[in-house]
């Protein structure tokens, strides 16, 4: 099925979206590895950013932090509560 119609319904990005090797297992494997590195970095960065808050303790109780229920399987960067063991 060749789609050489000029006015294709596909939104043609300037970048060649079709070049993305969606089915290539090697490409997916490489992507997953990179994504893992990125996720690690972002989690650590977030922990670093959150640190000053932990030391301040309950001074800055976040208004938005209601409920700790995380959706299952979330790599949740949305977790925004002070996890300091305040006693």
């Amino acid at each position, binding site marked *: 099925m060749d789609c050489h119609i000029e006015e294709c319904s596909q939104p043609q990005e300037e*970048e060649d979206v079709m070049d993305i090797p969606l089915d290539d297992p090697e490409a997916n494997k490489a992507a997953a*590895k990179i994504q893992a590195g990125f996720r690690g970095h972002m989690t650590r960065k977030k922990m670093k950013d959150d640190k000053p808050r932990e030391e301040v303790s309950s001074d800055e109780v976040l208004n938005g932090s209601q409920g700790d229920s995380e959706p299952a399987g979330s790599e949740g960067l949305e977790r925004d509560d002070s*996890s300091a063991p305040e006693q």
Partner: protein
Amino acid sequence: MAPKKDVKKAEPKKAEPAPAPAAAPEPAPAPKAAAVDLSAVKVEFSADQMDDYKEAFGLFDRVGDSKISFDQVADIMRALGQNPTNKAVNKILGNPSAEEMANKRIDFEGFLPMLQTVVNDPQKGTFDDYVEGLRVFDKEGNGTVMGAELRIVLQTLGEKMKEAEIDALMQGQEDENGCVNYEAFVKHIMSV
């Protein structure tokens, strides 16, 4: 009058004895797809490392039962400097259901072999791995990739990332032409 149909069979009314009572805190879950055998993992962390890990573990315990839930495991590993794929973590956890992810909890002792497994993983990503992976998209071979293309790759390949995650990641990484110098990018990623 019972119809005389009962032939003496081997086991009259013996229900299959269920092996594990629900409450048993077994580290190894029911035999699903080849899970990692955590009991065979030798934990080899130094005393200093153990202190760090214990501290982090405490931070993640928001219930106060000295445990963390399955769905926190990936994040605590990342907080401790590891970069596991979600797939690797799922395998270590025994490919849990969504419900198990949210509800099953493990203590520090149970967590250590999981962390050790990730630490021992021979397929861990290195600087070179990341750079080579990105080089694939370096169309002009000049050390840069189009930010927009990288975003699409991150959203459509591998373990897809969400737009918000990608925005956070890419902040400040694209030059005025929307290009990313990927070696610098990877160095930045690995610095934290």
